[in-house]
């Protein structure tokens, strides 16, 4: 078994390909996620981070490139049974806890849907027991099973979403902005819950977000996306200590911190892609600046960055 659970190779996702309205939502990105690791993907809306998550779980068919899960190409034609099994191993937690739960289903049925589809439970009592166990894992209780989504707060709904993802015993969870709709104090609860579950069940996460402070906290490694391209990738601490790409610097300088004195002196560095001034024959590639630290840059920039890297 290889160390990498997920391997994304030159993935491309073009919408309206070939037409005048073509959108290159993902433009040739590659990265790997190790078993048991949390990989954070950040960037502003429209940069393609959600599309990446959705393409990886085959909600979209990729335009080009591969997503390997445990060495198996997710997008390659497979038998129904193989697809079924892959669907069980990869699960998703969605951003909006209000829109991602069917308002006409009871929590019991929402969580048990995956169990039913994959035939993981025998009989009604077993089904109910499993759901109650799951509710308790995510910090809710058995009374909640008979209620409808509208009876819950945002944080509780996100817990239901997590319970639903966990129901089928997945190995890999894509969390698409799971906390951005929640209050600060509730965000901390949900993030802690995700971390605990990771330790207990050995889960691997792709954590998509635009809130960089929370991403740093939960991720082992972070990739920064800008207009469909991965511009920088590094271990979380390294990225915050040594941001190299101008866009990453600009993103970091935009975060307000709960510290009024710091806020009064914070200077924002806006990012302008034209500042790079690449020559016509310069090759802009993903290059390793320091061990494990990759930046999208030209050869000239690489030398400059390596010189300033501490």
């Amino acid at each position, binding site marked *: 078994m290889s160390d990498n659970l997920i391997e994304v190779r030159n993935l491309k996702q073009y919408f309206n390909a070939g037409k005048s309205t073509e959108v290159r939502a993902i433009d040739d990105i590659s990265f790997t996620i190790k078993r048991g690791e949390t990989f954070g993907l950040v960037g*502003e*809306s429209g940069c393609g981070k959600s599309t990446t998550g959705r393409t990886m779980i085959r909600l979209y068919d990729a335009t080009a490139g591969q997503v390997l899960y445990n060495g198996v190409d997710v997008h390659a034609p497979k038998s129904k049974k193989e697809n079924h099994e892959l669907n069980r191993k990869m699960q998703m937690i969605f951003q909006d806890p209000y829109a991602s739960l069917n308002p006409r289903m009871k929590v019991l049925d929402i969580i048990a849907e995956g169990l039913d589809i994959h035939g993981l439970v025998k009989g009604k009592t077993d089904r109910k027991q499993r759901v109650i166990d799951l509710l308790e894992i995510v910090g809710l209780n058995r009374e909640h099973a008979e209620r409808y989504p509208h009876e819950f*707060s*945002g*944080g*509780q709904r996100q817990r239901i979403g997590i319970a639903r993802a966990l129901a089928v015993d997945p190995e890999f969870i894509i969390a698409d902005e799971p906390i951005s709709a929640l*209050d*600060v*104090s*509730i*965000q*901390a*609860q949900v*993030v*802690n819950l995700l*971390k605990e579950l990771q330790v207990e069940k050995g889960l691997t996460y792709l954590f998509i977000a*635009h*809130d*960089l*402070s*929370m991403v*740093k*906290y939960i991720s082992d490694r972070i990739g920064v996306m800008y207009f469909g391209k991965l511009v920088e990738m590094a271990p979380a*601490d390294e990225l*915050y200590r040594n941001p190299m790409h101008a866009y990453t610097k*600009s*993103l970091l300088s*935009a*975060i*307000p*911190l*709960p*510290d*009024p*004195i*710091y*806020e009064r002196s*914070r200077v*924002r560095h*806006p*990012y302008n892609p034209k500042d790079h001034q690449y020559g016509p024959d310069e090759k802009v590639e993903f290059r390793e600046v320091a061990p494990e630290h990759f930046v999208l840059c030209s050869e000239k920039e690489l030398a400059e960055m390596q010189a300033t890297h501490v």
Partner: protein
Amino acid sequence: MTKILEVKDLELSFHTFAGEVKAIRGVNFDLHKGETLAIVGESGSGKSVTTKSIMRLLPESSAEYKNGEILFEGRDLTKIPEKNMQKIRGKDISMIFQDPMTSLNPTMTIGRQIMEPILKHQKLNKSAARKQTIELLNLVGIPNAENRYKMYPHQFSGGQRQRIVIAIALACNPKVLIADEPTTALDVTIQAQILELMKDIQKKTDTSIIFITHDLGVVANVADRVAVMYGGRIVEIGTVDEIFYNPQHPYTWGLLSSMPSMDLEDQKLYAIPGTPPDLLNPPKGDAFALRSEYAMKIDMERQPPFFKVSDTHYAATWLLHSQAPQVEPPALIIERMKTFKGSRYYVDQTGGTV
């Protein structure tokens, strides 16, 4: 400083099928001219209801003003007839809503939407109103305003739409601007731009702003003063430095501790345990007592009054009572207090404790 708005002992309830929800249970604050007051608290703490009650935007069929008054230019907004309220709303007091996707009318051009309050409140003809609209669009940083004026909301990005919403709110030079989570739906980079825009406009127009948010980073950036709400009451109010560097209420401690800090290495993020109180049956004593490790017996029985910390800083916690035992705030909070003169943990630059 001149007070522009005074909220006194405000109590407000919603009548629902399940019973009476006491959403606001005695809120007091003043808003001064030209300042930004941030109201923070989690969902359900009553921060949005407080501001909607100032605007009288709550459904009259279910919301009831139980007690207290909201004084604006000597008039009590809870008592004046709806017709007079219409002359204030959008003119003297206006509001920016959270979601720029849903607060604009998708079937009207943005120009018409910005012109609407101008035509209603100012005696201007259409061409003058149009000119003012284009000025407003320039003010909020929409490029090429003459042409974009005729466009529909869907032709703008989220950040631009929020700029348009701000233009509508500013159309009649309001004295009070209420911003209800104006940047929560936006990206950090766009958020930074909108916050800069609001501060810029405030400098030019001297508007007072009530800024509702749950993001303490944003509060640190924009606020002059901060009110922390919990369970339908303000539990602590003070200048931004006092709240961030010398917080007194255990709930404020919890809020500040649950923000991940950029320089801290891996450690468990502090999460306030439990859930907010049920305001159908509000707790008898301190509403936060059930979730607080600092709760004392009296917290379960009697609501704490406001204790004065300084002239501008008040906190409603029994911990400040002269007979209360001295407790140690969480380590993270003590770190903050070390930088604040006047706090009992203040450490002088030279190293001595004051």
